[in-house]
């Protein structure tokens, strides 16, 4: 069988298939559908220093080829997470990447410091959530602030870090370059794109938060473009995501330059998706007589 293992910042993943933060909880719910041990990594829902209640409902809305969400990073806080979710995930033979969110630099640093003392494998730093008022996306839309927060987190983190980039920017390569320059070990992209839906009969917004983050197959071409642009500008590995609904989509991201991929909103449509992508990539490699998945990473220039 072809080699599907990839390495990011010294962490070895059995395959490049991960879960996109916020679409897979901490794996408990989808553990009923897929064996988490078959995945490259579980990337958890965002965790803050304290519990966050999130936004009012409605928090989700359907759009053509995808959805909008404005969950607002509801989470139990890092202490509960460390006590409950990490032991759960450690039962499986998969890597654990914890998504970290905050409203201030101090928030991020507190979470990073606490998680540094645990058995998780990597930290994904969410500086791109469009649905919370303070912090989050504000950090991620300007190269200088990305450099600054990346540097500060890198200084305290004992785990390799992955900066998660927002697509809501003029030139995502500037942001990627800033994150790399500040020491980020990898990048994940893209977070959701800010969208809006109006219910013309009720004459109101479909989401209580007015705007929400758009995900699903509708955004895939934008995500692939951004992965391609960044992969040609930075040397650190990229975890590509945005609307992946099958192995072919995952391969498209990898050919554009992603070292790994994450399945997001489409888990909601196909709860077996992550497993099917793993198998589908293996099939593609076999059919095309490719020995090592590295042959397809960035192969389209």
């Amino acid at each position, binding site marked *: 069988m072809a080699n599907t293992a990839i390495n990011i910042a010294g962490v070895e993943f059995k395959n490049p298939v991960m879960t996109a933060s*916020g*679409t*897979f*909880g901490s794996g408990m*719910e*989808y553990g*009923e*559908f897929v064996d988490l041990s078959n995945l490259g990594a579980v990337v958890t*829902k965002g965790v803050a220093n304290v*519990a*966050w*209640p*999130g936004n009012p*409902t*409605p*928090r*989700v*809305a*359907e*759009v*053509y*080829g*995808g*959805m909008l*969400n404005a*969950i607002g990073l*509801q*989470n*139990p*806080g890092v202490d*509960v997470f460390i006590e409950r979710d990490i032991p759960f995930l450690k039962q499986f033979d998969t890597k654990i990447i914890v998504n970290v969110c905050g409203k201030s630099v101090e928030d991020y640093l507190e979470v990073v410091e606490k998680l540094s003392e645990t058995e998780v494998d990597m930290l994904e730093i969410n500086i791109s959530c469009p649905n919370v008022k303070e912090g989050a996306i504000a950090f991620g839309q300007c190269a200088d602030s990305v450099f600054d927060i990346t540097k500060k987190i890198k200084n305290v983190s004992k785990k390799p870090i992955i900066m998660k980039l927002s697509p809501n920017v003029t030139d995502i390569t500037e942001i990627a370059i800033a994150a790399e320059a500040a020491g980020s070990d990898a990048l994940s992209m893209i977070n959701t794109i800010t969208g809006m839906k109006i219910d013309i009969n009720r004459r109101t917004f479909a989401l209580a938060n007015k705007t929400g983050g758009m995900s*699903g*197959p509708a955004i895939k071409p934008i995500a692939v473009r951004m992965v391609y642009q960044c992969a040609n500008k930075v040397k650190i590995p990229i975890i590509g995501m945005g609307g992946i609904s099958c192995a072919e989509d995952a391969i498209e991201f990898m050919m554009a330059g992603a070292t790994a991929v994450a399945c997001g*909103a*489409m*888990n*909601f*449509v*196909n*709860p*077996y998706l992550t497993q099917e992508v793993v198998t589908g990539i293996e099939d593609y490699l076999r059919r095309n007589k490719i020995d090592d998945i590295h042959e397809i990473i960035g192969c389209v220039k």
Partner: protein
Amino acid sequence: MKRKVAGQVVINEEIAPDIYSMWIETDLAMDAKAGQFVGVFPANQSTLLPRPISICEIDKSRSQLRLVYRVVGKGTGELSHFKPGRRVMLLGVLGNGYPLDKAEGKHAVLMAGGIGVPPILQLAKDLSGRDSAPIAKDVTIIVGYRDCNTFLKEELEQYGRVIIATDDGSVGTHGNVIDAMKENGIQPEIIYACGPMPMLRAIKTYSEEAAIDAYISLEERMACGVGACLGCVCKTKDIDKHSHVNNARICTDGPVFEAKEVMI
């Protein structure tokens, strides 16, 4: 064990204006309970997420589920055109369902309004003991409709006394289900309910004042249906077990909640 499976449409017919009744053959029927729901996937790929639809009846002997739904948009509009034999993709069985044992030996009053009526049918069947031993001492069913299109009324009558309220007064009490309860001097010992939010709020208030247990089924926009996305939350009195922020997940902690536990 939740799963995504292919079911097959057995029958799909309009039983009132814009209200359809669909029987689907699926082995999800073997796991289903009154008050649970399934996610029905659209065939047209313009939208992707499953539509949560409550289970109206469960026929384990035929391995069939009945869904009674209102056509409100593209998704349900498409569903209404599904012909017998057609494959339909389902996610299920979802949610907790109604706690039947709470009704043991009591006069159970089932209250429902509009498209909240369907799940009450299986519940009435179970509590009245039509298919098994009776659970409740007595079952009264109070259902509210917009007008004289009192769908499922005859079927409900097999399982208990049925009292009707209508918005336009064309049948039964002119008013809501609480009005109908009072007009008919019904004294519930336990309430089970499903329907629009104003009705559920009224039931919550009534049950708290009367110190009666009430179990209400809530609705909210959902994405995953399995508790992962945190889209469909409801404020709760106590901290929730997932995020510890008093936000229960309707899809998994619910859709049925004790009325006094939720802030609606």
